[in-house]
């Protein structure tokens, strides 16, 4: 790399050397000096600072940039260096400096070749609305051909003008219109943060823009609540769907249901551990691998429980309740002994991280995938009960055990398989829940009450009831939460369910016919 900037060289080098002082205010000065220097090394230095690739040697006061491929250069001169000195440590940042870095990078990347980067740069200028970026923005706006980027640039320019004290009234009014059209929370933040000494015309425009953004956002917040409700409903459904089989179809009060969920989550953890140590490239597929394994692990444990404990207790609900509750404690402590009491880290694969904007609401990928996943499981389960031989046998046994037995169905085998199926599905739920909750021995406990609530509310013995019940509770909860708060919201839901059960003891979708009396 060759560059010549003799006039600035001295001050640029001085600025870079300040990074070595390990003092936040010196680093701050260095960032603005380097960003303003116009030196071609400014961009590599500041982006390295952001990614902790900028290191400094406290003894020699030399600063180094480690490239993404491990190549090291001297930050002040650009000369290549063999390797980092022993005692070089990354330059430390705090939040204030990270904001300064983002703002500096924003103006440095406005002319980047990648449109996505240009948009990101424009957004960070919008947030910081630094006057110094105005010239670059004007320049970039004139050259820009991409429509989306152009809009982002115009918004950033409007933000700067709004805050510029010597901008004309016309400029400011135009800026308000642009920001109003943007219409999201950031626009709102920008307008509310404006100093109050605006010309009366501008102040009026700002007030009306704020009112229009506000009403727009209020409408979107309804949509958002509905989405959150669907998402919470899908989690409830996922946790309850296994119970809908063991409790709903078989009538076994299985207090260890939550622990099946936990076993599924720990299976995911083990799968990810193996992948991390052996095949790091497969990490994005870890959940796909974990799903069948979790089904098998939890299902096998379920069959063991049915064969070992529950089959001796059919028709004795109190004893079943106590036995399975004891079992849940045993399973929890076993996992605690094997994996330790602390949370285990289950990572999100890249396709489940982050979010996207739909209108004015944020939809996170993990919630979206969980919703799809839950519905898929529900459909598969429904199809299985309706169209397979095992499903037919299950329905037969639950409807009339003695009749089924006399038709040649091995009822005890079907019992074991049904219980295994319910447990296995709980295990699959554990895989999904490991993405949004703690993987700890207590994971299952937090879902057991909710699961029973959903199954009872929806109507025991009816999968559709469970589906409708889960989504009703989820949506009701999310519409109550902003009004009443999380704690009161939950209490209100419980009270509503109690009242509902008084009125309809058999839940939303009550089974009719002889099976009910049996």
């Amino acid at each position: 790399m060759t560059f010549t900037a003799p006039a600035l060289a001295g001050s640029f080098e001085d600025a870079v050397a300040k990074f070595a002082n390990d003092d936040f205010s010196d680093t701050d000065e260095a960032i603005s000096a380097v960003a303003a220097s116009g030196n071609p090394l400014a961009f590599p230095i500041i982006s390295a600072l952001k990614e902790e690739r900028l290191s400094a040697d406290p003894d020699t006061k030399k600063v180094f940039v480690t490239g993404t491929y491990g190549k090291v250069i001297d930050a002040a001169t650009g000369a290549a260096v063999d390797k980092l000195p022993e005692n070089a440590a990354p330059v430390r940042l705090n939040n204030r400096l990270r904001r300064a870095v983002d703002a500096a990078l924003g103006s440095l990347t406005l002319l980047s070749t990648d449109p996505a980067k240009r948009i990101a740069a424009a957004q960070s200028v919008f947030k910081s609305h630094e006057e110094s970026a105005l010239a670059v923005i004007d320049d970039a706006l004139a050259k820009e051909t991409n429509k989306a980027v152009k809009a982002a640039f115009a918004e950033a320019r409007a933000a700067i003008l709004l805050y510029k004290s010597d901008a004309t009234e016309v400029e400011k009014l135009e800026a308000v219109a642009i920001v109003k059209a943007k219409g999201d929370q950031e626009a709102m933040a920008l307008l509310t943060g404006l100093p109050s000494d605006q010309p009366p015309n501008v102040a009026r425009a700002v007030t009306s823009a704020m009112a229009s953004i506000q009403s727009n956002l209020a409408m979107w917040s309804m949509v958002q609540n509905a989405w959150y409700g669907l998402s919470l409903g899908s989690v409830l459904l996922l946790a309850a769907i296994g119970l809908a089989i063991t409790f709903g179809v078989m009538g076994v009060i299985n207090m260890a249901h939550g622990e099946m969920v936990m076993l599924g989550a720990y299976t995911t953890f083990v799968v990810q551990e193996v992948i991390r140590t052996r095949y790091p490239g497969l990490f994005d597929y870890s959940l796909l691998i974990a799903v069948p394994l979790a089904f098998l692990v939890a299902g096998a444990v379920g069959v063991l429980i049915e064969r070992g404990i529950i089959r001796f207790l059919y028709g004795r609900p109190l004893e079943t309740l106590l036995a399975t509750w004891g079992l849940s404690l045993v399973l929890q402590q076993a996992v605690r002994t094997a994996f330790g009491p602390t949370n285990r880290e289950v990572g999100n694969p890249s396709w489940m991280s982050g979010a996207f904007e739909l209108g004015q609401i944020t939809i996170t990928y993990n919630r979206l995938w969980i919703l799809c996943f839950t519905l898929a499981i529900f459909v598969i389960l429904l199809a299985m009960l309706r169209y397979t031989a095992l499903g037919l046998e299950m329905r037969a046994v639950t409807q009339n055990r003695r009749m089924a037995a006399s038709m040649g169905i091995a009822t005890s085998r079907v019992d074991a398989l049904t219980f295994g199926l319910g447990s296995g599905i709980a295990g699959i739920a554990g895989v999904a829940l490991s993405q949004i909750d703690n993987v700890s021995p207590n994971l299952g406990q937090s879902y057991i009450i909710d699961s029973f609530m959903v199954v009872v509310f929806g109507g025991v013995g009816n999968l559709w009831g469970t589906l409708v019940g889960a989504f009703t509770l989820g949506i009701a909860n999310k519409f109550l939460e902003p009004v009443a708060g999380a704690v009161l919201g939950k209490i209100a839901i419980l009270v509503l369910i109690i009242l509902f059960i008084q009125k309809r003891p058999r839940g939303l979708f009550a089974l009719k016919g002889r099976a009910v009396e049996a």
Partner: protein
Amino acid sequence: MLTRLTHDIATMSRRRWLAATAGLVLGLATFSGAKAQETIKVGVLHSLSGTMAISETTLKDTILFLIDEQNKKGGVLGKKLEAVVVDPASNWPLFAEKARELITKDKVSVVFGCWTSVSRKSVLPVFKELNSILFYPVQYEGEESERNVFYTGAAPNQQAIPAVDYLMKDEKVKRWVLAGTDYVYPRTTNKILEAYLKSKGVKQEDIMINYTPFGHSDWQTIVADIKKFGSAGKKTAVVSTINGDANVPFYKELGNQGIKATDIPVVAFSVGEEELAGIDTKPLLGHLAAWNYFQSIKTPENEKFIKAWQAYTKNPKRVTNDPMEAHVIGFEMWVKAVEKVKSTDPDKVIDALPGIEAKNLTGGTSKMLPNHHITKPVFIGEIKANGQFDVVWKTPGLVAGDAWSKELEGSKDLIGDWVGKKCGNYNTKTNKCGGQGS
């Protein structure tokens, strides 16, 4: 067997029988004498199962480790220390039962234990009645000073108030979200913080207070609310007293909804190295925690302690955290007090403890105060990508723990003083023992 023995005795000469009996009696005497001399018992009252096992198991290991180290140095008063570990199973009434068992049955000289405030409140009457000593190692809401309890964790003025000061001065925060789990510690802390913020001129509409149930896992609405609250054009920060388990989904939701620490920083009082061990910390870069100790603090004492701890647990990745350091300090103070009065008698040790000093792991010396709290430094750390904290700010010196908050109307005139006044809630206005809140 028995017949053979009687036969032996019968055939034994009278003299030999006498000698044998004497030998036996002597043997018994030396045996029981040795037993009485053998050990000083130390009770460990931390949950090893149930919800709180996640946090408390480490503290049990810490005490075992400290006892081991002390015994290598020859024990205390020439006797070895012996740990008596019980499991109160995260069950608050069981804490009281197990405490009683430790004191009356096992006759321990001191107990190290409890995590949640409700467990501490549940054992208090037992320690008072049986006059024993409890060392409590966790940051808590204050508003308490008991003769039998020594509080080695932070009082609100040693954690919450300095953290808010930092945000106000360094980050210029103007709007505040106080988010907590719905129980006594967050509620009292938030009450104190609210009063403090208002005294600093923050308006009611710039404070949002939010409580969630234990183990809350669906944070979508609350995170969206925080985002909305933060878009009012003023710098916003979240002060989180969210309890251990609910933190992971909370931080995951923050990361997923794209709230970065540079926009809305979250400062947490219950998230330490141990809790971060269960999360991918890359999206959390820059969020803050306030503690009196961080594993990343570079002092010779701390490096030595971490090395010894990792060797003891045979796990080179085992992290250390703030409540562990509190136990380290508390344990050393107790040893020093016992050695000072040359006795483990609770009354003598309780009187000896105030004024005792012990080195903390961050390069200072903590002192036990007359109100049974200790002096500690306060650090603000930012979460780094490797799950550790980078200290970005610290108090210039040590901060003395206030048993009674100066911010609350009901407690600002109260002090705890077990040396001069012999009273935990002495009212300096009326000069009487026994104020509100006792």
